[in-house]
């Protein structure tokens, strides 16, 4: 896997431009790399290090703290089943076991065809809609076993391609770059203070 593409470098520079200090863009740039390749590759991290002017070790140091970043290829779809307390009370574990059985893998593994990575995750803020899961961070609520079967079938047949982009893609709308007013800094802030 590769360094960031030219188009993504341009995007990365826009993102960096929205922060007073380049390193603040680091997590968004790691997401950008994951959007490009489906996971965060070493060469992408080296490239990001150049862009935000830190060492590759610092980039990995930050990246490795966060669960969403994958350093090895994962499935096209990450199916994350919540088993935390509200979901446990309403069958989150049984839902996870059902999916393990249907996919023939354990939580944490990827199917041989590379379609699905299954994970047992912590609370995803859908507690009133238990049991809940996410497919590439898109929610499914009050999921029954029949719903789960239909979901897997839809994923295999590509019926959800329009709704659920491949792993790594989060928001499909980006904040647009604007002229940063805050760049004018303390002088301008003093003007505000004078009001």
């Amino acid at each position, binding site marked *: 896997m590769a360094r960031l593409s030219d188009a993504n470098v341009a995007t990365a520079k826009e993102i960096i431009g*929205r922060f007073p200090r380049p390193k603040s863009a680091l997590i968004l740039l*790691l997401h950008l790399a994951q959007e490009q390749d489906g996971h965060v590759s070493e060469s992408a991290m080296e490239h990001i290090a150049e862009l935000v002017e830190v060492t590759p070790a610092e980039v990995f140091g930050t990246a490795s*703290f*966060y669960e969403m970043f994958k350093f090895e290829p994962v499935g096209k779809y990450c199916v994350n089943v919540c088993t935390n307390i509200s979901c446990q009370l309403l069958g989150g574990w049984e839902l996870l076991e059902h999916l393990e059985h249907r996919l023939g893998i354990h939580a944490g593994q990827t199917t041989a065809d590379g379609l699905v990575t299954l994970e047992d995750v912590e609370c995803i*803020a859908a507690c009133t809609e*238990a049991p809940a899961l996410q497919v590439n961070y898109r929610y499914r609520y009050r999921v029954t076993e029949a719903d789960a079967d239909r979901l897997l079938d839809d994923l295999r047949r590509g019926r959800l391609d329009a709704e659920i982009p491949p792993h790594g893609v989060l928001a499909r*709308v980006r904040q647009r770059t604007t002229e940063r*007013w805050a760049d004018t800094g303390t002088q*301008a802030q003093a*003007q505000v203070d004078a009001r």
Partner: protein
Amino acid sequence: MTETPPSYHVPGLVPTGPKLITTRFDVADGYTYDGYVRTGGYTALRTALTTMTPEDLVNQVKAAEIQGRGGAGFPAGTKWTFLPPNVFPRYLVINGDESEPGTYKDRLLMELDPHQLIEGIVLACYAIKAAQAFLYVRGEMALAQERLAQALNEAYANGWVGRNIAGTDFSVDITLTWGAGAYIVGEETALIESLEGNRGMPRLKPPFFPAVKGVYMQPTIVNNVETLSNLPWIVNEGGESFKAIGAPTSTGMRMFAVSGHVNRPGVFEVPNGVTTFRMLFEAPEYCGGIRDGRKVKAFIPGGASAMWFFDEHLDLPLDKPTVDRSGSMLGSGAIVVMDDRTDMVRAAWRVVRFFARESCGKCTPCREGTTWLERIMKRIVDGHGRPEDLDLLLDVSDNISPGIAWPPRQTTICPLGPSAVSPIASALRRFRPEFEHYIAHGRPIDGVDTRSTAHV
């Protein structure tokens, strides 16, 4: 299964109080710019910028006595006054990293009414004289990120964010960013670390109180999404009107997510301080009773970090000082109801496992303590518990939070470690025979559901 996000459960108009911040949840295009402006959006911002000084605005928010909705419940207006005068640049950080188990409200506010939050952010920046805000959304919330990005682009294009807002000389930038999966980043100093591109580990307070040394060591205010979403209403209607709703000790309306074994789990905006837990669980306009007509065995009143409550607490009002005095907290408005068939040992294990997984590892008592609590609980649940394990659980808990008291004392930088003690102390003190039965027989007591679901 609901196919089209966002799915949310908001009942019709609640007869006991008005809607302040959920008015657009039922408006199909309430999240768009057109939908927002059509329903009165951005009028508060224009009013504030053209007729009020920043001090006027601070005074309105102080008069409202709104308590922060992120968990700690500190009065928002007072928090703003902690900024040292004349130190610039200063920053506003919006905490949208909602991940406390049981908590589900900020995501709805971001997905269904992003412009209301943006208006609240610009108002707060005007009040605290900040020119740069950072809107930090949880990494796993793709739809919220998308809607906020769209809303920000629209707000910039229409002159509500950016340079010379509403034709005045006030200008502010909002930078949208998000995390990548770490509960601890909801802690304000850890969030600031994450915002600086680092591992999300909390900073020691003192000296790193955000108001004094926050983002880039500059003065910083960190406010919760729900708190800021209330600002447009407060400006439009006045702080005194806000204070008139709810109780004097817990003002305004407040969002609560009620999950678990109730007939109709949901997110409700309720009059703060006067509604009781029993009303919330039983009233037809809220949850409509416990499933299958059963009884409450325990409930968590304020997120996984809170001590558990039992049937004797049902008639307590959702009032911060009352709940604090009763030995728990309202926290982030997360109520989890467990009926009388719930396996308490398994429930406590699952909450402890959460804290063990999410400990950032910076402080030894938390890193080691939560790990051991989880291992001991797991072997009990798996049928391999030892008689001495119960005292061992309390001993480890005492090392993380000396005295196992409430409010918790802590040997750690942040409250995550002591939070792991709450489920242990709550379940073990109240349901010790259930633990002993597990250890003696390798299985739960009779009558609890052996599946994780107590609703067959």
